[in-house]
């Protein structure tokens, strides 16, 4: 082995991590949990009742934000709409699928973090303000 091939540069390491990340992403894409999640997400996005209630919720939230008068009445109506939304079968199926996907991703994250020696997902989120930390 000559010197050139024995040195692992920082760029090579990052390429290795990028490649490993892409491969892991492809594997996760084809897990039963994620496939069910995508199907449930699609069903929710195309459900007319969900669309209508979501639009109503959005309108009420905006009204509450900009004109706080009669807020208790509006809040009660908002709670009723949210309960109605959560009662729709497509939404319930979506919630279950989302939970299963989150659990799967958390397990994967746990392995990555253990191997790395640093928590992965916790430290992989962009901060909103563009500052560090």
């Amino acid at each position, binding site marked *: 082995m000559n010197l050139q091939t024995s040195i692992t540069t920082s760029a090579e390491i990052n390429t290795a991590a990028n490649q490993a990340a892409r491969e892991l992403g492809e594997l996760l894409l084809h897990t039963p949990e994620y496939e069910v999640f995508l199907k449930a997400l699609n069903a929710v996005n195309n459900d007319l009742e969900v669309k209508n209630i979501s639009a109503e919720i959005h309108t009420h939230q905006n009204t509450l934000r900009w004109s706080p008068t009669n807020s208790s009445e509006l809040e009660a109506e908002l709670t009723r709409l949210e309960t109605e939304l959560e009662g729709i079968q497509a939404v319930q199926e979506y919630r279950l699928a989302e939970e299963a996907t*989150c*659990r799967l991703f*958390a397990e994967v994250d746990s392995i990555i973090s*253990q*191997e790395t020696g640093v928590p*992965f*997902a916790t430290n*992989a989120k*962009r901060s909103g303000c563009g500052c*560090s930390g």
Partner: protein
Amino acid sequence: MLTDELQNAARDLGEALRASSSVQAYLKAEAGCEADPEASELEKRLLALHQELLGRQQRGEALQRSEIGAYNVLKDRVHYNPRIQERDAALSEVKQTFTAIADELSFPLGIKFASLAKAGNV
């Protein structure tokens, strides 16, 4: 239950990240911080004081101005400790690396891996 293929792929990513210069620098800085009696003592004291003041505040007790002042002095000492600064700077680098890699991982999925993984940890 994770398949062997998935477990191996997660381990491969973890290994590649551990070999990166940013993670190596952070692990070294973290070990340096833990081995420094002053730095570790300062952090322990700050955490204990924070928990104590927070607990009292949550129980409805009004904190004295001098107590808050003492807390801020200790917080500054922690912030300006060179070992802790070195570790925190290294952690910022790690966060940049991890964010870029998480983006790569999220790309085939079309959603943010890190957000869902964090939600699954709750």
